[in-house]
């Protein structure tokens, strides 16, 4: 019974007007969640956690660097799943969502690279080195930009989405490379600190802001994705009846 209604719900999200309303209703809640988690996270990051014994206060950069890095990679996985669904089932709302993941993912990759570089200057003694982790993360940024460019290059948006979705799946190979780069090769970048299985090598007193900021950026990714997808859908369907009806009626909010 519950399973059936979930399935029906998903099918309805394939319908543009329903998807449009879904984005409109859900997005403010995600933005609100993002704001709350960020405020709590920043409070912890600046007023509660102690400085690190080696890095002093530069450890506070980690509370945006690491969540952004995780989100840049998790966002890519989400995009790849959507792209796979889009290519197999040809559902247009999924195509749109997959394409709209790219600019947001690129933004998080940029945050990760910039904050990492700023941390690296005083701690490592360099802004940038071509080690496996840093290079593969830079490649991720270029993949995101390539997907955006490819999608924009086509006059026919659906054709553009389909071609770009293939690039999304090709670029997926970079995600395990980023993740395992610090284990497969000697790198300048440190290895994993946070482990889901086993003990993390971070003292528990320094964890709360990391957790709050991680949740915050996940909510932000969702909110920005819904906002962008709604715009893209409206733009694609500008000549369709449901858009005209919305504009003629009480007006689109």
């Amino acid at each position, binding site marked *: 019974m519950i399973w059936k209604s979930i399935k029906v719900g998903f099918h309805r999200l394939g319908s543009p007007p329903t998807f449009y309303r879904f984005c409109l209703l859900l997005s403010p809640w995600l933005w609100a969640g993002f704001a709350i988690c960020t405020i709590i996270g920043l409070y912890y990051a600046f007023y509660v956690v102690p400085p690190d014994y080696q890095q002093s206060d530069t450890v506070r950069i980690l509370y945006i660097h690491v969540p952004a890095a995780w989100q840049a990679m998790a966002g890519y996985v989400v995009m790849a799943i959507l792209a796979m669904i889009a290519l197999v089932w040809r559902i247009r709302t999924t195509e749109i969502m997959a394409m709209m993941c790219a600019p947001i993912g690129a933004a998080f990759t940029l945050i990760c690279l910039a904050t990492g570089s700023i941390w690296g200057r005083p701690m490592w*003694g360099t802004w940038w080195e071509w080690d496996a982790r840093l290079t593969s993360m830079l490649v991720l940024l270029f993949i995101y930009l390539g997907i955006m460019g490819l999608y924009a290059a086509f006059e026919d948006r659906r054709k553009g989405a389909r071609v770009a979705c293939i690039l999304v799946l090709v670029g997926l190979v970079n995600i395990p490379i980023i993740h395992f780069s610090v284990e497969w090769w000697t790198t300048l970048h*440190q290895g994993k600190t946070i482990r889901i299985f086993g003990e993390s090598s971070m003292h528990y007193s320094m964890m709360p802001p990391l957790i709050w900021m991680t949740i915050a950026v996940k909510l932000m990714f969702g909110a920005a994705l819904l906002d962008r997808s709604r715009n893209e859908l409206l733009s694609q369907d500008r000549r369709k009846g449901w858009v005209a009806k919305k504009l003629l009626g009480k007006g689109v909010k």
Partner: protein
Amino acid sequence: MTPTRKKRLAVIGLMVLGVSTATAIALVALNDNIRFSIGPSEIVAGDFPEGRQLRLGGLVAAGSVSRDPTSLLVTFDVTDCIHDITVNFNGILPDLFREGQGVIAHGTLDANGMFQAHEVLARHDETYMPPEVARAMALAGGNEVCGEPIEDHIASVEAGY
């Protein structure tokens, strides 16, 4: 699932598999070039020619750091607990540099087997803790490099914050 969709899924699966295989082969072939640094044992064992640019990675050996009081000249041993290589460096060290720290020295081997670095980077060892916890651990005698205790570790921990 309709036959068309099954076919599409299979094509996508094969494509991802193909790309992964090709990438894996390329990465294995390029393994030595992707590595950022080499260890002291490899330098001792391997015949790296004099004057070739190398990145030497390892730990700063306990009690090996000596600074020239009048200049920026600093000498220290980089160890992997089997072999030590002495590094000479004239310049500013990164803030994480201390005994027991992972470092990467960029430079060349000279005729005497000494490493002349023109750049020294510090590695971070992925542990994060507050100063009090680090101090307690240092007092409990938990700090050593390759079995050699770091004599002034408490001092360096305290100097670090």
